[in-house]
């Protein structure tokens, strides 16, 4: 007896194969990768290629060792996609051997240790990322970026917060790295100076201390300013230099003026394509982004924590690629719709917490891994009730 599965073609139903799905995801990654390469660092292309080739080789070897059919499994595209995502997540300046080590970890530890495609409880790319950032903390956080073809060193920490140079002068850390430094500076500087001049900032937020930069037309004209002003600054504590608003504005400028936002927008575009192509469902990205947004808004309104305004928060770091491409990896995500929502919300919460309260500037990878641990529980708790079970029989 042959299987029903074969008859998809007979009835003219265009079934989507695993390869097709992975292909769509890769297609959706293309614009982001191109934007990344043109605006940030062209070496990303090399990294992606190196990662993919290495991944294919490692995968082939491992399949051979596990005595599986090499070609069909190699062609399913999952390993290529994972390698691509890993290459996008690590700094472009990462030494190739470290990247390859990451690929080996990804394929071996992240995937085949658990039995290959479909069996891995953790997102392989994120496993590799975590291993890399723990093993090579220096290179993994050193975003030496090659802008306009010239190797530019990571610029010195901003001593005066609002003095935010234009992007092409920064050529250093990602916005989140800069924010982290800014935060520590705020911390250092505001600690001794007790609140002495309350209210000064709230009245004229844009002109204080940084007439030349904070009111650049780019920032001024954008709706972000309006948005930021709308944000309640907190009734109680408006300390001297209002570090919250300071930080907030700095964050806004740092993120919105860096080309990274275009990369994020490109990921968003790719993600929307995936949504419309029916490759992913809205549940995970929506809940990730919504949770992060709510948390940043809440923090902003509490007014005691330095925080990033909403839109920059969403466009910063790996949030977009994480929400649309990494968290939605079906193998390691929850399956039921409610489970997906909770899974996404968990990723949002962990991302926020790790970003704001840990030593790592970006938390998407760890958030995804942490929530991967919860997936069996989520699947167990939120599997859709089977309505036609015997339990309900009268």
């Amino acid at each position: 007896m042959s299987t029903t599965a074969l008859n998809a073609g007979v009835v003219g139903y265009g079934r989507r194969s695993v390869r097709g799905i992975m292909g769509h995801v890769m297609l959706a990654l293309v614009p982001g990768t191109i934007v990344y390469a043109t605006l940030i660092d062209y070496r990303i292309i090399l990294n992606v290629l190196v990662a993919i080739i290495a991944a294919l080789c490692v995968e082939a070897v491992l399949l051979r060792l596990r005595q599986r059919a090499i070609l069909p499994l190699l062609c399913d595209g999952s390993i290529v996609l994972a390698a691509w995502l890993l290459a996008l997540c690590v700094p472009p300046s990462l030494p190739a051997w470290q990247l390859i080590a990451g690929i080996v970890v990804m394929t071996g530890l992240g995937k085949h240790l658990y039995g290959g495609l479909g069996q891995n409880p953790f997102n392989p790319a994120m496993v590799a990322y975590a291993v890399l950032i723990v093993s090579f903390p220096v290179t993994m956080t050193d975003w030496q970026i090659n802008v306009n073809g010239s190797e530019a060193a990571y610029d010195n920490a901003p001593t005066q917060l609002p003095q935010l140079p234009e992007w092409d002068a920064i050529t250093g850390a990602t916005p989140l790295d800069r924010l982290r430094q800014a935060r520590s500076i705020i911390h250092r500087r505001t600690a001794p100076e007790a609140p002495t001049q309350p209210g000064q900032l709230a009245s004229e937020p844009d002109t204080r201390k940084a007439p030349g930069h904070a009111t650049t037309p780019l920032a001024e004209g954008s709706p972000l300013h309006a948005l930021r002003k709308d944000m309640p600054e907190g009734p109680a504590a408006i300390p001297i230099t209002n570090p919250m608003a300071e930080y907030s504005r700095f964050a806004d400028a740092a993120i919105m003026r860096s080309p990274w936002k275009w990369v994020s927008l490109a990921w968003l575009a790719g993600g929307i394509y995936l949504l419309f192509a029916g490759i992913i469902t809205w549940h995970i990205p929506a809940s990730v982004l919504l949770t992060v947004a709510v948390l940043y808004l809440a923090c902003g309104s509490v007014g005691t924590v330095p925080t990033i305004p909403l839109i920059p928060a969403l466009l910063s770091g790996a949030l977009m690629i994480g929400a649309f491409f990494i968290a939605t990896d079906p193998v390691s995500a929850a399956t039921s719709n409610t489970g997906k929502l909770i899974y996404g919300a968990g990723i949002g919460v962990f991302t926020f917490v790790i970003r704001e309260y840990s030593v790592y500037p970006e938390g998407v990878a760890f958030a995804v891994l942490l929530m991967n641990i919860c997936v069996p529980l989520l699947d167990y708790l939120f599997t859709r009730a089977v309505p036609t079970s015997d339990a309900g029989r009268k």
Partner: protein
Amino acid sequence: MPAETVMKLLHHWWTARRDEPVMRGGLTLPRHKPGLPVNGEIATLVMPDRLVLPLLDYHGRRLLPVVSVGQRVDYGESLAPGLIASASGSVIAIEPRPVMHPSGRSELCVVIRPDENGTVESAVHEAVPELTEQRLATCGVTGLGGAGFDTASKVHKATQHGEQLDTLLINAVECEPMISCDESLMMCHATEIIDAIASLMTMTHCKRCVIAIENDKHAAIAALRQALDLRPLALTLQPLAPVYPAGAERQLVERITGQLLFAGERPTHRGILCINVATALAARQSQLGFPMTSRIVTLAGRSVDEPVNVRVRFGTSVAEVLRQTGNKPSLASHQVRTGGPLSGFDLASLEAPVTATTNSIIVQPVQPTVEPLPCIRCDRCSDVCPAGLLPQQLLWYARAEDLAGSRRFGLDSCIECGCCDLVCPSGISLTQTFRHARDSQREQRHRDQLADAAELRFHKREDRLAQRQAARERRRQDARAKLIGDSDAIGDALARARRRRQRHERPGQSGDHATPSHDGDS
């Protein structure tokens, strides 16, 4: 959960907006409905030289033949309870022959050689003014939809079941792609179908009737409407958006009435009698005195040059049908599937005879087998499952043959529709696994029943033995009591005798032999 609630609200809104009941899950497939009659005629075949009628009922239980080899049978005569001779002729054998089964197994069949002039078919019974269960049974009317239930007992059970039947649901939804036998029937016999519905409503005392039909069967709908104009009936013609598997009974009931059936529950428990449109017509024919001896079969597929709907007499082999319609596939290069391209199965032998459930014969070139990839947990299968199951989770339990787990995940509710297979990007044969699991579950249940019966027998025997033992014990006690009583009497007598002897001074004699030396064992 809130998201689910929102989705449900949206769903309801959408439903209300479209003014058509929407079903859960399912797939919208390309609609080819090949072989529709263009001139309002359904093709027929010439009488084959052998008719093979399997001695099986719809449960797959064997039937006891009431005819013997060499006997002459008449058209419409009963061969076994529920089995009707589809032509007059002589029984030339009762022997195992391949039947319509995925495994191609052989079962006992009655083989008839039809008479030369066996094609003459007239009413074999008197027409009755009102349809009865009795008549349905004598004419061998069984469901022509999917399961092939015995219609008489279906109606019987429905009327038996305390609650009054309320709705007659005529299933004219032919949701499988490539099958158009019911559609052609409706195009050609709309008036008779309306009559049939009227008879069935009188018989079952249903107050309401709904004909569920897919909204793209324009010709059939038009024909039915025209027939309804001629004979107005209190019925609703409910057009439905074509979704596979809308025609599955539970799904249809759910969609039309909004009532969710539990596993194992029949629509009749809710006062709904679901009858396939072709079955309804067969019931009407039985009222007029014609036994049910043929059905319409759609012949289609990529290897069939001219798709056609053809009336096939039960017992005609698939090979014969193919030959007479000018197709010569071999199983080496073609796969021949019956029961529908999605929920059917491939035949292992072309000698298998057409039965009431053979709605189609689909011939395709053999397709290359594709090694399935592992499940990537994409959850597409749950989205399309019309029973609202989680096929990928169920798969784990079904593969592990964990029956308790499978049942928890709704194996009993799986209708084996194949939707999950169709969407699975990894190409996993989920449906086949579920089918196997259900088979083994059925087997398990059967074994359990046997075991239960054996246990019962054992306990009965134990009881019986215990009773016997107790009775024996009682008797022994009685006997002993009696014996003790007796021995006292004997002892007394002996004592008396001894005294007498002593009195008479006669020493040397001892009559102690009569003293009980053993317990009275009975």
